[in-house]
């Protein structure tokens, strides 16, 4: 797990890990600690949630979208498919992540962190 997580890079990129419904990870939790190993610094967000308008007005440099059981109906999943998200500036890097790994934050997350690190570098 330590090998997959890797050291925290000296420079991190501001990012937002957002799940369906606009729920965000928060900048002080375990998810934020894990994201730093991928070179991403989770932005502080009031109320633990972002609206789509908020995302468009104050876009992060990197948007990590957590996808959980895609194709199954839920209002939260539908949020992530909102047509207005197409209007995010072209400079915003969008990376999808497997939402199941972030649910339990166990050893299974380490390969996902390694994948995110590689995706960011690529």
């Amino acid at each position: 797990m330590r090998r997959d997580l890797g050291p925290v890079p000296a420079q991190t990129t501001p990012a937002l890990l957002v799940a369906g419904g606009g729920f965000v990870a928060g900048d002080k939790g375990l998810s934020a600690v894990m994201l730093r190993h991928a070179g991403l610094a989770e932005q502080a967000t009031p109320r633990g949630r972002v609206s789509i308008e908020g995302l468009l007005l104050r876009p992060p440099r990197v948007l990590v979208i957590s996808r959980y059981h895609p194709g199954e109906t839920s209002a939260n999943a539908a949020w992530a498919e909102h047509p207005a998200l197409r209007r995010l500036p072209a400079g915003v890097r969008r990376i999808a992540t497997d939402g199941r790994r972030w649910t339990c934050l166990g050893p299974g997350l380490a390969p996902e962190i390694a994948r995110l690190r590689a995706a960011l570098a690529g």
Partner: protein
Amino acid sequence: MTPARLIAALALLTAALAMASLAWDPAGLRAVAARDPDLARAILLELRLPRTALALLIGASLGAGGAAMQGLLRNPLASPDVLGPSTGAALGAILAGYQFGGGPLAIAGGGITGAVAALLLLLALAGPAAGTATLVLAGVAISALAGAAMNLALSLAPSPYALYDLMFWLFGSLADRSLPQLAIAAPWLLLGTAALLACRHRLDSLALGEDVAQSLGVDIPRLRWTIVIATGVTTGAGVAVAGSIGFVGLIVPHLVRPLVGGRPGAALLPSALAGAALLTAADMAVRLPIAGEELKLGVLTALIGAPFFLALVLRGRGQ
């Protein structure tokens, strides 16, 4: 105030609130427009327009539906959001979407079916001329049954996100609605509200008693079916895209009826306008954070409506 002046005043108020909703945080919007006009246009057209339009249409349909039901059942506590149709609509939408995997159209269809079924069950349990106690009891029973079934359906849904959605279905929200959702709900909301408004003269006749209404040529069973189906359609379509938003249909007719001489039919159009204004204002109020948190729309309408509901019950007891 004459009915025409009342309608004009309410229409102006509704239009002003709609403009305020679209132009929310005008300084911020101007700043965005200055640096990226396309983004400002996208925010207005793809986010704020569906949100505001749905607030107007759903508010109008709840106001008109509440006024029509109170006129039809001759009961001041009758409304689509208190007596079971809202919860029935949410159950129908949940079954269609989460259990059967239907898309947005199927969810709207499920919502409409659930609302109509709940209304038919209400009429079957309570009867068309039920007293207040019987009506409220029947409505509570239907709401409890549909609410329990909703919980079960979400708990057993394939998506693990489903249970998180319970808050949306119970408390409602217009945040982050989309143009496709507006396109699905709007025709049903408009058609249903128009059908309700077309009943205004017959409702005024019914207020004189069924015998008098029949002698004036009112087909009472047809009027009853029209109001039940139209209220079910509008409630179902609204709940399918915005969740359950309570008490608007209950409060608004009571505020309007004294201004139109107590006539149930004359109260329909003003109730629709007042419902649209109330829901648009409430949707703006929930955008103001309270202790850093944004309230759900249905929580705010319940905070306003529940004390009003209690006051009605106490007043009815006193009589």
